[in-house]
C-alpha cells in the first residue's frame, strides 16, 4: 500500500473522495498524528458512534480496488477499468509518467475522469483553468 507523503497529500486534498468514504475494516487511513494504518472492525464501530469528530482526524487512503469501483463503466469495454486506464495513459503519457505508484495512477485517473481535476504537485486543480 502506498503510504508515501505524496499519496497522503493527494488523498487529503481529494475532498470529493473523502466525502464519499463509508468506512470498513481493512480501509487504510492517515491520522493527524502522522500514522498510516488499516482500520479494524472495532475502529469502524467507534467511527459510526462519533462520525463527525473522527472525520476531523482520519483521512481515507483508498486501495486500488476501491478506486476502480469509482470508475464509471463504459459500455462494451472488456476489462472495463483496465482498458479505460490504459487508453487514458496513452492520451496523457507525460502526466501519467509523473505518477510514481499504482495507487497514485488510479487516483489521478479517477480525479481526471470523474471530477475533471489534475494534480499540480500540491493540490487538485480544474483541468479547465
Amino acid at each position, binding site marked *: *500500500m502506498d503510504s508515501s507523503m505524496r499519496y497522503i497529500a493527494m488523498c487529503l486534498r481529494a475532498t470529493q473522495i473523502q466525502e464519499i468514504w463509508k468506512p470498513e475494516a*481493512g480501509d487504510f487511513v492517515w491520522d493527524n498524528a502522522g500514522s498510516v494504518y488499516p482500520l479494524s472492525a472495532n475502529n469502524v464501530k467507534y467511527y459510526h458512534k462519533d462520525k463527525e469528530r473522527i472525520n476531523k482526524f482520519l483521512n481515507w487512503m483508498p*486501495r486500488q480496488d476501491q478506486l476502480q469501483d469509482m470508475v464509471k463503466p463504459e459500455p462494451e469495454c472488456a*476489462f472495463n477499468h*483496465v482498458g479505460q486506464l490504459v487508453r487514458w495513459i496513452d492520451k496523457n503519457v507525460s502526466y501519467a509518467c509523473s*505518477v*510514481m505508484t*499504482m*495507487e497514485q495512477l488510479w487516483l489521478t485517473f479517477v480525479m481526471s475522469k470523474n471530477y475533471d481535476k489534475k494534480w499540480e504537485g500540491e493540490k487538485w486543480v480544474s483541468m479547465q483553468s
Partner: protein
Amino acid sequence: MDKSIEYAQMCASAEEIQIFRAVNENSDQEGVSDAWEAGDFYSVKMRVFTISEDEDNPPAFLNPVWLPRQDQLQDYIVKEYVSVRKMMVAFGQYCEDYGDIKFSGEQLWLSFIMKNLYNKEWDGVEWIAQ
C-alpha cells in the same frame, strides 16, 4: 477487495504466493506465521477477515488463505519493469490477450503474475504449468 469464493480458490491454489504467509522457524508463536501484516485479507472456510494492529494473526491450523491486495501482488512483479507505466501497459496487453472479462482486478493481477513469473494458467480449478 475481491472477497469472492473464486478468488479465494485461486489464491489457495497458488502455492508460490501462499508461501509468503507460511509459518516460519523464527516465528515467536508456535503455529502462527509472523509474516502477516496489518491490512492483509485472509479467508477461512469461505469467510473473509482482515488483520489490524490490535488483532492476533490467524493460527496455521485454521488453514488461513492469504488474499493478496493488488498492491501486494504488484510488489512481486514491479521489479521486472522500468516504470509503473510500463508495468501497467504490459498488464493491459496481458488482459487483452489472455484475461477473462469476468475476472476482478485482483484475479487479473494474480493471473498476470502466475503467467509471467511461473508460466501457469488458471483452468477454473487449479494453476496449470504451460
